């Protein structure tokens, strides 16, 4: 049995206001070659890896849950998705944009967006862009601490470490039971 379940970021619909700061932070964290210190000077398009959804007056950002035995990893026909360092990672160089992973994700965390190719690949010619699968990678390639969590003005995004969070719930439940027993 694995000692630790994969950590992931989750949004709280009761706190989220739909300002999309997290999306911008995500795109900034994943910009290529450190181009653009400010959003206004970014040459690459803003492609966030978490997705905004609205339903019945609530809003939230949906991102990858880094499932154990991820369906996306099993579905990928070219084996571009694998578990690396406790998070599910899509290898950009192997993805062919077939959309199979996006179809099987139970939470809708993968979306297919135009693959950004810089100047060295296009040479300044406006070439046809193909799509590629994008999803949250826990900012593993770019420092380790998810940028979206830091950017949220309402603290609606938190990093869940499943075993710790379970323990916290257990402790709270036990304390509540203690209070209840005292009253009886």
């Amino acid at each position, binding site marked *: 049995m694995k000692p630790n379940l994969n950590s992931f970021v989750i949004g709280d619909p009761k706190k989220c206001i739909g300002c999309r700061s997290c999306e911008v932070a995500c795109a900034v964290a994943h910009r290529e070659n450190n181009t653009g210190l400010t959003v206004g000077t970014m040459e690459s398009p803003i492609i966030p890896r978490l997705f905004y959804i609205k*339903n019945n007056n609530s809003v939230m950002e949906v991102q990858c849950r880094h499932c154990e035995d991820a369906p996306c990893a099993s579905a990928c026909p070219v084996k571009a998705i694998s578990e690396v360092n406790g998070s599910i990672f899509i290898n950009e160089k192997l993805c062919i944009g077939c959309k199979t992973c996006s179809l099987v994700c139970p939470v809708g965390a993968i979306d297919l967006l135009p693959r950004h190719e810089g100047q060295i690949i296009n040479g300044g010619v406006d*070439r*046809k862009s193909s799509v590629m699968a994008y999803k949250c990678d826990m900012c593993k390639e770019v420092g380790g601490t998810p940028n979206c969590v830091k950017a949220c003005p309402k603290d609606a995004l938190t990093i869940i470490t499943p075993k710790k969070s379970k323990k916290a719930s257990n402790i709270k439940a036990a304390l509540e039971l203690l209070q209840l027993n005292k009253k009886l």
Partner: protein
Amino acid sequence: MKIIIDGKAYQCEKGEYVLQVARRNNIYIPTLCHSDALSGLGSCRLCVVEVVDRGRAKVVTSCIFPITSEVEVVTNSTKIQKIRKDLLVLLQARCPENEEINKLAKSFGVEEERVNRFKLDKTENCVICGLCVKACEEMGTGAISTIDRGVFKAISTPYGDPSPQCIGCAVCANVCPTNAIPVIDKDGEREIWGKKFKLQKCEECGKEFATEDHVKFAFAKAGVKSEKILCEECRRKSSLDKMKNAFPKVEL
């Protein structure tokens, strides 16, 4: 080991391809049939460079030329420029009305429609690079392939009939560099490579988001089942609803 590209030295490993090293160091080499995921085709020849090895210069395709010794590479000599221009002239003669080829040709300074002596189909879009065939193969379906030889070479399903293997995923159209594969989504059906597919409707909102065959293929490959087949948006809405009601009193 190190190699010299356009007069400057760069570090590389033995066996790496010249194109890889060039891109890593921000050197532009144009490509048409190259894709990191489906590499090794070497069919378009647009990425040719000159490699100077032991005093002799030879023209090679940088996408599949492995570095085995400390050679010198020239990416933009007059000879290479002329070769690229000639390639584009021929490509444009084959596909005169193709936007992507025209854009590329313009960037290399090719004048319009210089070659008039070939009697070809002016609406041709395919340059037979082979990316679609490779992509379909990688998918595991292998529905299309190259057929015939010489001037009759083309990409098709076996005998031109609708392929039983095709699932309508359209990854071929995605990787095609010249938009040569038509995918027509109309009236709840997708038509591609002469085969008609029923488009899967989302069980919540009714949006058509993929072919039924592709959805079946995806779930079979993943080895999971889903009670309801939903589009991405509805799946996200369901995630939102679950998070709203999940832990009403526990602080997340």
